[in-house]
């Protein structure tokens, strides 16, 4: 069976977020269409498209250290459905924390899915500090000088159908040092607190669910 299609699957609920932006960057090189994972209802159409594709690229955000539940639900359903035969699978996960280790479980998850279901794992890309982009181009990333060329190399691997090594994204992301980490913590907290206060809340108040109980 001929499988010419590349499937670009966005696992984010946000259509203009960083996950979608990264897929759009890939689409400009590989062609194909970005498909958004439906957040409710049947997953059968998505599974069928996965079965019919020659290569699948899944891009999603990192929620509490791995992909969101809806993608896990898709992988579970696709595994039950079966019907895979060597489809090449690439993964991208992006999250707010500027580290690789915080998000890389997502790629481990996809790799295990591929190995257990007769797909061919081709590697992935972890993008730390991705949430801050909020869908803006990769050229706005705080570590753009290293990230942009390396992500474009990752795209080349996808276009050529070749495996992409973990070392590609690992070498591109240098975590902030101790001083910058403290600066980030203060700056990000300042922004969070300002947003909370703007909406009339006290950041130091007990959690809403505990107050509700009282």
């Amino acid at each position: 069976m001929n499988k010419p299609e590349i499937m670009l699957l966005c696992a984010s609920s946000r259509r203009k977020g960083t996950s979608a932006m990264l897929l759009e960057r890939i689409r400009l090189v590989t062609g194909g269409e970005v498909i958004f994972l439906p957040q409710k209802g049947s997953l059968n159409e998505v599974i069928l498209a996965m079965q019919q594709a020659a290569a699948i690229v899944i891009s999603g955000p990192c929620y509490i250290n791995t992909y969101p539940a809806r993608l896990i639900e898709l992988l579970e359903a696709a595994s039950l459905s079966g019907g895979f035969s060597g489809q090449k699978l690439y993964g991208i996960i992006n999250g707010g924390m500027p580290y690789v280790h915080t998000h890389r479980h997502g790629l481990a998850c996809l790799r295990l899915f591929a190995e257990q279901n007769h797909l061919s794992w081709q590697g992935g890309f972890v993008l730390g500090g991705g949430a801050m982009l909020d869908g803006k181009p990769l050229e706005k990333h705080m570590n753009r000088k290293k990230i942009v060329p390396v992500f474009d190399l990752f795209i080349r691997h996808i276009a050529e159908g070749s495996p992409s090594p973990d070392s590609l994204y690992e070498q591109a992301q240098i975590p902030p040092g101790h001083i910058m980490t403290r600066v980030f913590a203060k700056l990000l907290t300042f922004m969070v607190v300002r947003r909370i206060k703007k909406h009339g809340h006290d950041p130091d108040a007990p959690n809403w669910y505990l107050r509700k109980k009282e």
Partner: protein
Amino acid sequence: MIVIISDESSGKLGVALKEAAGRAGAQVVHFAANTLHIKPCAACGSCSGKTYGRCVIRDDMQQVLPKIAGCRALVLVSAVVFGGVSHHIKKVMDRMAAVGDPRYQVSSGELVKGMSGQGMSYYMVGTGDKLGETERSAFLFLHEENRNIMNTRGKAFLLHSSPDQAVIDNIAQEIAHE
């Protein structure tokens, strides 16, 4: 209070742990996540802004969140799925941001967040009969990363799908008397 949230689709380990922890003297609340109606997190950001500390999605998670907010130990029980947890449990995890502290802290030289209120312990219990080393490592790694990002204590356990009662009792004892 200990909160146990389990996916009982492929076993009754959550119920067994609840009973064992109760016998060990702990006050326990148990939810079977696979029987609850929980929608996926919409990443709307409201819980860290407009409705600070409260999730705006109206579903069964509104019964679960008050218990998590006030617990001293949270125990998630799931079959190991691709080195992580099932989607039923992952939905709960994704929605826990509402009871997290959105402010940033530094721990071991890295940015972390934390849970609101007093610190809780965080446990994961994974089950599976033919888990390879990669899958076992991935599950333990996920717990470790969760524990780090929540800046809390806790432990992960990996069990066969039908563990001996003695194994369940030991875990319950450890959690109850932590």
